């Protein structure tokens, strides 16, 4: 019997905004239902409606039954007995989800005492037990800490502890790992699985990450524009998607197990919930659209033999019949090859060179009593170079120093230690005029396309700003040319940034960066703020620009799948140092540093079969503070190799001696900073990789 049964749920906000338009699903005991969708698809609103936590001005209709009892329209007095007891919820951002002024332990104990008659001290003890269960070290001490004193991963663990405090029947997880780094995400997903085993609860897992769903879910519901468009068992849906949106989504994500060639982009943007197109909401973006698609919205109807599968598309049988995939249906752009790369790397000019670069910050403490208490070793001696026409990716988790590196390069100022050489000019030895001239050749594209554009300037002025600053004359013509180059219409030059979608704004940012015809483009997480279906188009654009304009990229990212797709070489950073560096093929297929290995194994693959059979290398604990890095090898405190495979004498070396990047035997361009580097395969190469 199902725990939760949702039927025809609709949610309308004032102003006729239909956020959810008829969602139905069931969750069984012990089952994980994944709900996938992009931002604005209504996936979070659905679950808040079930919990009765929407603002009072939202109009909810349909039905949501918990163990046969109707939840919608239930009295708040009754609902409080269900919330936190029968249904618990885990939210995306664990920092804002905890009340800042109470300790974690108190907040969990409060959750216990709401639903169980228990003395205060007993509840506090129970809170410590729960924290222990989700793997928080020293739970008795940590229970007395405030939310801001926890790291992101630890907070999400505490959130899970609070959610399972009363043994719920159903757990709703709303993007539970989106705010976390991959290795921490892997830990938290593991904790969620443990929590499910402990409680036997059903889980509704809401996320935009197809990889996470592939590894967690039993069944999947795909949402688009407030409605489910496809539903089915995870394997069936991933390997045989029958709705063009799902097909496009699965084909558009870059994969860490490697696939060459351009990505499959879905053109256009999701419709606004206040002005939906007639008929199928996906029709305007669908390559298989026929006139009939605009007549009426196709209902979600059972599909195929065996049941459990439903699709909302009038051409689904045709897709099934012809065995179409995303790559067949969606037009794949042709990206011209780069001219420069024909020249061997050693003979190409060096665009950027970092030599043992150091950047430290003073560590300040206290808001009332501000004072220096130490030093943050943000970047502590890194060396790499970028050749003409090449993309070097700098990857690592938050706090590894990649953003600091990038800022140091962009400032074109003398570093605290080491050298930064841009286009043959040492940043410590140039004067003001030369620095200004050099700025023309080095430009940057930022992560957040909203924050990167001044909201009060029309696009025309935004793109013209660098041109005017450097005294270019033909500003107007050049702006039009640039807009066309990045795939936007020049007529849009008068508009303001807020009138563009995220992907379009990122294109504007790229156009601005290209305005002065730079030689080196620094890309700071250029696609991580974009929805999956938009990402592919921007990645393709970046690849095309690089090839046609002969640019070099320094690409900073945490998404290793995007990096694999776009980069030629990759440098993995950990706590201000480079752990491993080399060509993408070498590093991804034969990682030698234990950190790289863990990082690669933590990435969820959008492939249910592979996710199930994969062995993960889980890292212990959090990143140590860059103000107080461990002696010797910085990774040793979390290193699985250090913990399990080395003997006492070998370990001593890791403690005493800091490893430097050494070229690996037998490799042309591959080095690792580990005393005991050893290449292993972490990701099984995909079929098409094996064919080569």
């Amino acid at each position, binding site marked *: 019997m199902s725990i939760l049964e949702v039927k025809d749920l609709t949610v309308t906000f004032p102003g006729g905004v239909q956020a959810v338009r008829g969602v139905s699903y069931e969750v069984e005991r012990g089952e994980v239902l994944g709900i996938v969708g992009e931002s604005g698809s209504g996936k979070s609103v659905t679950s808040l409606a079930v919990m009765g936590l929407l603002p009072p001005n939202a109009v909810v209709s349909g039905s949501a039954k918990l163990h046969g009892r109707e939840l919608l329209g239930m009295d708040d007095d009754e609902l*409080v007995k269900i919330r936190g007891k029968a249904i618990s919820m885990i*939210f995306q951002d664990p920092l804002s989800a905890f009340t800042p*002024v109470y300790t974690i332990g108190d907040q969990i104990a*409060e959750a216990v005492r*709401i639903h169980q008659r228990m003395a205060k001290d007993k509840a506090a003890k129970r809170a410590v037990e729960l924290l222990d269960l989700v793997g928080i070290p020293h739970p008795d001490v940590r229970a007395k800490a405030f939310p801001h004193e926890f790291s992101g991963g630890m907070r999400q663990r505490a959130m899970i502890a609070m959610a399972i405090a009363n043994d719920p029947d159903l757990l709703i997880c709303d993007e539970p790992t989106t705010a976390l780094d991959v290795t921490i995400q892997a830990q938290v997903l593991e904790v969620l699985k443990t929590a499910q085993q402990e409680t036997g609860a059903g889980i509704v897992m809401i996320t935009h990450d197809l990889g996470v769903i592939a590894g967690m879910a039993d069944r999947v519901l795909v949402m688009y524009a407030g409605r489910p468009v496809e539903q089915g068992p995870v394997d069936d849906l991933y390997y045989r998607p029958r709705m063009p949106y799902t097909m496009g989504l699965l084909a558009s994500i870059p994969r860490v197990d490697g696939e060459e060639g351009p990505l499959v982009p879905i053109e256009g943007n999701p419709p606004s919930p206040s002005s939906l197109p007639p008929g199928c909401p996906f029709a305007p973006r669908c390559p298989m659209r026929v006139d009939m698609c605009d007549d009426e919205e196709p209902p979600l109807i059972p599909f195929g033999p065996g049941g459990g599968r439903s699709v909302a598309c009038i051409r689904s049988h045709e897709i099934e019949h012809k065995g179409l995939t995303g790559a067949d249906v969606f037009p794949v752009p042709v990206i011209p090859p780069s001219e420069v790369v024909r020249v061997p790397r050693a003979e190409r000019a060096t665009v950027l060179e970092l030599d043992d670069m150091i950047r430290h910050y003073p560590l300040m403490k206290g*808001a009332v009593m501000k004072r220096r208490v130490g030093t943050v070793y943000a970047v502590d001696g890194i060396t790499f170079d970028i050749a003409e026409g090449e993309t070097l990716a700098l990857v690592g988790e938050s706090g590894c120093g990649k953003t600091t590196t990038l800022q140091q390069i962009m400032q074109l100022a003398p570093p605290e230690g080491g050298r930064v050489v841009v286009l043959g000019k040492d940043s410590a030895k140039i004067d003001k005029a030369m620095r200004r001239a050099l700025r023309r050749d080095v430009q940057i594209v930022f992560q957040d396309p909203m924050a990167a554009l001044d909201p009060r300037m029309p696009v025309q002025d935004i793109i013209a700003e660098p041109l005017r600053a450097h005294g270019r004359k033909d500003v107007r013509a050049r702006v039009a040319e640039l807009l066309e180059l990045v795939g936007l219409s020049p007529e849009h030059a008068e508009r303001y940034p807020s009138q563009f979608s995220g992907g379009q704004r990122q294109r504007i940012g790229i156009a601005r960066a290209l305005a002065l015809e730079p030689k080196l483009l620094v890309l700071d997480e250029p696609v991580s703020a974009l929805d999956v279906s938009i990402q592919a188009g921007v990645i393709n654009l970046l690849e095309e620009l690089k090839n046609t304009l002969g640019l070099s990229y320094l690409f900073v990212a945490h998404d290793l799948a995007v990096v694999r797709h776009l980069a030629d070489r990759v440098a993995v950073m950990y706590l201000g140092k480079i752990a491993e560096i080399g060509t993408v093929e070498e590093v991804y297929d034969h990682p030698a540093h234990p950190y790289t290995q863990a990082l690669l194994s933590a990435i969820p693959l959008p492939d249910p079969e592979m996710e199930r059979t994969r062995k993960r290398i889980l890292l212990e604990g959090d990143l140590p503070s860059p103000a107080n890095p461990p002696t010797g090898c910085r990774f040793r405190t979390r290193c699985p190799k250090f913990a399990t495979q080395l003997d006492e004498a070998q370990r001593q070396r890791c403690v005493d001696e800091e490893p430097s990047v050494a070229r690996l035997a037998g490799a042309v361009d591959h080095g690792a900073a580990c005393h005991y580097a050893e290449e292993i395969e972490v990701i099984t190469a995909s079929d098409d990789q094996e064919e080569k």
Partner: protein
Amino acid sequence: MGKYLLRRLAINVILVAVAASLAYMLAASTMSPRAAYQGRQPPIPEATIDATLDMYNLNDKVPVLQRYATWATGVLQGDFGKTWNGGSVNDEMGRRIFVSLRLLLIGTLLGFAVGVGLGAISAVKQYKATDRLIGVSSFVVLAIPVFVLATLLAIATYNLNRGLGFTLIEYTGEYNPQLSGWDQFLNRLNHLILPTISLSLGSIAFYSRIQRNMMLDVLGQDFVRTARAKGLRRRTALTKHALRTALIPSATYFAFAFGTMFTGATFTEKIFAWHGMGAWLVDAINAQDVNSVAAVTFFTAICVLFAAFLSDLLVAALDPRVRVN
């Protein structure tokens, strides 16, 4: 931490010194206590006036810098000099501080407590009749300057008392010196009613608006949703989680108001004829009383800096995010 506190203390001492010195210079070079002696009948001989003024360090024939030096030496030894007619500024200050304290303590506390309460209710009942009523009233009150409000209250009380035929509510002075014991205490309380209302109405309106905004900011935040998701009733989630967090900014305003309480009630003191610190400033300026003016300035500067420090401390106490280990 000790070093930090010392540095902060040093900066504050300098600020107070500069502020008080500037005030002294300005007052000493523009005001003329001599005028109070010159216009008398029968006329006082100039030599006598000079001698008297010299005694009080108020003689405008002495160079300003020299007078300043004398004054500053005195202040460093804890002596603020003499008033224009030879009284001790220290005594006067001591007396007036307590007058102000008696007058303002209740009003300040009441204003904060009632204001925060109303603001919280207003936020919880957003867009309902209660919210609109509180909102409109606080708006109107905030638009009425305190001297208009105090005058209005005085008129209303005067008419009320006249209508009743006896004095129900006192509207001027601090107490009736003819009464004693318990009666005098009650009489003192009676005298407090009007000034307290006129003082606290404004702060009630002020805090209710601040608290409402803070609450609304907090109400939409994730942690309130979490509190409800774990099964707390709306009311409990709002008071225990939202109000407690939203109290922090209001409390800093309160700390500041508390610190500057002594000199903040010039109008109320003047209109209801209480001889506190606030009224002293106006009286001193009108009496061309240089040393008193400088003393009030000195005291005000210390209050402002103390208030800033107090609000920092209070934030640290209420908000674990800025607490110092």
